[in-house]
Structures are given as structure tokens and as C-alpha cells.
């Protein structure tokens, strides 16, 4: 333990800020992931590829097209929704029938993601791309003068977005008519049918929403990391899974909170443990491992993880 840092409140606050924004990044990515799982309980392993394509869509609109951030965000979310729709129709619906077990849809999503990533590589190349500074000024603010706590616009944006999306999605799911239908389908498809709900229709809507979320995540993550490559999805995917589990499968708020948790754990490990940056991954996954064993439904989960 390197105690000299604990004395320094600025350093501590700084790490909290960085940790939370790092976590927001995971959370935003995980939201769409967990939504699909909550409704269909299948893992959509093409979510990361969708997310990557959205980042590129945003890049073309903002960097190549020179349009401002809001338009880029909108374009990315649109692209995400479109891609998700195609995935639902081609990769998932055909497997939503008698005798097809949940794993097969996971496999077809793996196939889809392989295709999407390869096409992106062929189309865009693997050279890093980034948004021009005019999209979002990279110069950070310093709270309390220089030497104070630093926070960049991208960090503020992703922190805000993670909260807004979490609350917004929560309200959508809880309050709106469609949101209730989605929960009905998630709870009991048979019952939903008996209520006259077009289950496939509701599932399509779910995919559209999840896709749009992937779009938002793509832009935000790309802004924060300035590193747009076809592989960007695969790099965040595993942590996204971890976050989904931490928050409890299908739990929107859980995903974001889980993201914050993982982000803080990583950051504080790096900051305060000697050689922390080397062991942060081990620590992160160890915690995931332990939480699963102690609280299988995740920190906020009400699912049913234990074998009956």
C-alpha cells in the first residue's frame, strides 16, 4: 500500500471521477446487452459488433460529413436500431421455435458478429480513426484551478448520458404502455399472447431500443477513448458481460451501477495498490467471480441464477 496518496484528496477525487467515467463507459455498453437478455434470456454476442458499426456510422457523419455531435449521435442510434432489427430477423427469429435451445441463438449471434467485424475490417481497414476536435473539445476543465480535479467534456458527457439513459430507459420500461408489454413478454410469453400482445412485435421493439443504445454507446465510448477500430467491440465485450452479471441479468439500473462498480474497482486498484495496474484485471474478475458465488443474481438482481 502506497499511503502517500491517501493524504491527497485531489488525487482521490480525481480517481473517483476517472473511475466513474470509466464505469459509465462499461455501463452504457452493457445496457442494451442486458435488455435483450432480460426479455429473451439469450446472450446477443453480436451486440459488440453492432456497437462498433455505430461508432463508424457516427464517424462518417461527424468526421467525414462534418456534422455536429447531436446529429452524429442520432445517426449512430438509427444505425444501431437498423442493425439490431436485421439481427433479430435473420439471426434470432428463425431460432425462436420448437426444439431450438437458447445456445443455438447465441451461436448464430457469434456467426453474425464474425461477419460484421470482418466486413468492417474489409470496408474501413484497421487503422485507428478518431473524431476531429471540433466534435468535442478534448481540453479538460480543472475544478479548483490547475492542479485541481480534471474532468474532460467527454467524461462529463458519458457520465451524464449513462444516468440519463438509465433513468430514461427505466421510465420507458416501467411507465409506458410498450414498456409494460415488454415486461409482460419477459415475464411470461404465453400470458402475453393471451392478452393479445403481438410477442414478435414487442421483441422487435426491444431489439430496436437495444440497438439504439448500442449506437449511443458507440459514440460515447469512441469520444472517450478516441480509438475507433473494427476490434473495439470485442475489446469491451468481456467487461460488458461482467457488468451485466454484476448488475443482475436483465437489470437496466444494475448494468449501470455494475459498470460504475467495475470502473471504480479498476481505477482504485491502479491508483492505490503498488503494481495495481498489473493486477487490476485479476482483481476485477476475482470480484466478479466472488459476487457470482455469494450473490448469484448480481448486486441488484432478482433473477433466478441458482439451480433449483
Amino acid at each position, binding site marked *: 500500500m502506497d499511503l502517500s496518496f491517501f493524504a491527497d484528496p485531489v488525487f482521490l477525487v480525481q480517481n473517483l471521477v476517472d473511475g466513474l467515467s470509466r464505469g459509465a463507459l462499461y455501463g452504457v455498453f452493457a445496457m442494451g446487452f442486458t435488455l435483450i437478455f432480460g426479455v429473451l434470456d439469450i446472450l446477443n454476442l453480436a451486440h459488440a459488433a453492432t456497437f462498433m458499426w455505430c461508432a463508424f456510422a457516427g464517424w462518417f457523419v461527424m468526421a467525414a460529413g462534418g456534422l455536429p455531435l447531436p446529429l452524429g449521435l442520432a445517426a449512430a442510434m438509427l444505425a444501431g436500431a437498423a442493425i439490431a432489427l436485421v439481427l433479430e430477423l435473420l439471426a434470432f427469429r428463425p431460432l425462436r421455435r420448437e426444439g431450438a435451445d437458447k445456445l443455438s441463438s447465441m451461436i448464430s449471434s457469434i456467426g453474425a458478429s464474425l461477419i460484421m467485424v470482418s466486413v468492417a475490417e474489409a470496408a474501413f481497414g484497421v487503422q485507428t480513426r478518431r473524431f476531429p476536435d471540433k466534435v468535442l473539445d478534448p481540453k479538460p476543465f480543472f475544478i479548483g484551478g490547475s492542479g485541481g480535479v*480534471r474532468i474532460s467534456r467527454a467524461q462529463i458527457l458519458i457520465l451524464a448520458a449513462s444516468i440519463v439513459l438509465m433513468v430514461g430507459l427505466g421510465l420507458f420500461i416501467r411507465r409506458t404502455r410498450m414498456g409494460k408489454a415488454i415486461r409482460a413478454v419477459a415475464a411470461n410469453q404465453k400470458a402475453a399472447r393471451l392478452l393479445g400482445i403481438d410477442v414478435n412485435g414487442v421483441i422487435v421493439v426491444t431489439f430496436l431500443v437495444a440497438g439504439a443504445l448500442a449506437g449511443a454507446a458507440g459514440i460515447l465510448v469512441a469520444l472517450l477513448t478516441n480509438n475507433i477500430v473494427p476490434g473495439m467491440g470485442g475489446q469491451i465485450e468481456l467487461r460488458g458481460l461482467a457488468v451485466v452479471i454484476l448488475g443482475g441479468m436483465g437489470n437496466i439500473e444494475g448494468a449501470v451501477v455494475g459498470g460504475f462498480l467495475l470502473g471504480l474497482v479498476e481505477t482504485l486498484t491502479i491508483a492505490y495498490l503498488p503494481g495495481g495496474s498489473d493486477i487490476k484485471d485479476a482483481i476485477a474478475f476475482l470480484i466478479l467471480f466472488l459476487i457470482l458465488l455469494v450473490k448469484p443474481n448480481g448486486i441488484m438482481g432478482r433473477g433466478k441464477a441458482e439451480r433449483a
Partner: protein
Amino acid sequence: MKAKRTFLCVAVFAAAAAASAAPLSSSIKIGVVETLTGDNSAYGISIRKGIELAAQEINASKLLGGSQLALVVADDKADKQEGISVFTKLINDEKVAAIIGPTLSGTAFAADPIAQKAGVPVLGTSTTAVGITAMGDYIFRDSLPQAAVIPGTLAAVIAKYKPQKAALLFQADQEYSKSEADVFKASLAKLGIQLVGSESYSKGDSDFRTQLQKLSSKKPDILVLCSLVGEAIPVLQQAREIGIAVPIVGGNGFNSPNILKNAPEASEGLIVGSSWFIDSKVSASTAFVAAFRKKYGGDPDQFASQGYAGLYIVANAIKNAGSIDRAAIRDALVKIHGLDTTLGPFSFDENRDPICQSVPLTVKAGKYVLFQ
């Protein structure tokens, strides 16, 4: 002087050629095994571009008289088993005279022994890890091992800034970045600079602020960054973003036009050491850059240059051997001496590692220039 040497060589190898069993055929197959798909394909792709440009020139210039070079390109997918598989395929089915590649040292450690066993010369153009060429007398490379670059660079930095304390950031789970960092640590120690902090990140990380913050809190005089091109840009930007003002010394990954293009402000003043850089005044290099821009309409990077040089080295060896007999080519490679390449006059040492210039560079006004 040089002409004289060349004459000697020709004389020597004319004899060898006359003796050797397999004379030059109309088409000579050269295997090119690079990582062309996946996260690491950035390197493989630009190497391939360099090689294909070289092949075009060589065939046009009749360097090998009547016979043409035919490239057999294969993707190793940065996977050991795939590397082994394509090596075997090229050697047994395609009967290649020599192989250039693979892109990553990890793959090389698995695949090169196949060629060694079969007696096929292999020239690595991007493998820098310790022990690559030690795998056998058929294994060569024209990529300078980090140990041959870094001390020189650091010496130049010390001469200018007189740093007392250095801090280091590298990617822990990546072979290249890790070994580069190890070499930096060793040479820093040798040069009596105190390493006040060493932090790492791992694949998939995109936020390096915390590591950088921790390092900057140790008040180093210079910051050393070992990253691959992908992470190099965000690392550099975030280092500047959190207000690190001290000179930054970058590893190999920072010698790329991409850095200049994507991190114009952040890269200003960046120091890297390399055997080649885009504005190199070496005649072969200026010609190469011009031809590359003409063919591909973009700037070549170090890997393209090394690939380009690599094929010229192999071609000259074949010419000197006057034969496509693999053993003869291997012997001719060993004897390559002071060959004019984009990397400057090029030779192999007794371990079949390259002997060529390595210059310290710095970024001024969006260009790599010699660092004094």
C-alpha cells in the same frame, strides 16, 4: 569502392551459380505470411503493401534477369496453428524459395521452426523479440531488435534533457510492448536514470488516465511510453490531456504517420528511435516513399518500409545465389553486406540480425525529423 565490392560478389556468386543445381526459373515463388485480418492486421497489411510494391519494381527492373518474383500471400490470423499450417502449405505445396514473415513474434516462434526443419530461409520484417533468429540458421530478420534501437535513443535524450527520473507505461499482456518496456528499463538502469514509476495496461483498456496520473504524481523528468499503434494515440492524447508536460519518449509503435495524422497536437515534441522514418534522406527511402505514395496514395510507415527492404534483400540474395536452391539462397543471405535499402546500408550480423542505422527522431510541426 562499392562497385568493386559488387563486382567481387558477382564474381563469387557467378561461380556459385554455375555450381548450384537449380538455376533461376522463369518465375520464383516467394511466400509472404502476414497477419492480414484481426486486431493486429494493421502491421501485416502495410508490410504487404511494401512487399508488393518491391515485387512490382524488382520485376520491372529485371533485377533477376529473365525471371520474375511471384508472391504467394497468406494470412496467419495471428494464430500459431494457422501460421504453422500456412508455412507448411507454402513450403510443401507452393514450393516457395523463401518466406517473408510472419508479422508477430508469437507466430514466428511457432512457425519458423517448420521452415528451419525444411531448410527454407525465413526473413522476418517486424519480429523484434529476443531469440527469434536464435531458432535456427535459416531464420533472418531486417527489423532491428529493440535492444539495438533504444540505448541510442535514450543516449540522445540524456544528452539534451539531462533527466534524473523516468516513468514508464506499457501494455502488460502484449509481447512486443512488454519486451520493449523491459529493454527500456534495462537501458535506463545502465544509463543511471532512476525509474520512479512503471505502470501497465492491458488489451481492451481505453482509459489510461489513472496510470498516467499516478506516474505524473511521481514527478518524472521524462515519460516513456511503450504501446502499439492502436493504443499509442489515446495514450499520447490522455498523457497531454492530464497535463504531463515533460518530454515523452515513445517505443516503436509511436513511429507511424497515423500518430501525426490523428494526434497532431499531442505528438508534437514526441521522441522515438527507429531504423527508418518517413522523412529519411536515404536515397532508397526517398524513392520508396515517392513510389509508395504514387501506388497507394498514402504515407508508408516503418513496417511498409521494412517489408519493402525485406523483399529487396531476398531478391538480391537470390540474384547473388543465381539459384532458387533454398540452401544457396540462405548462404547468399548470410553474405548480404552493405546492401542499399530504405533502412540504409544493410548487413546481417553473425546471428542473422540486421546491422543498420538507428536514428533518434522527434516530431516537429507534424513531421518526423532527426532529433539533436
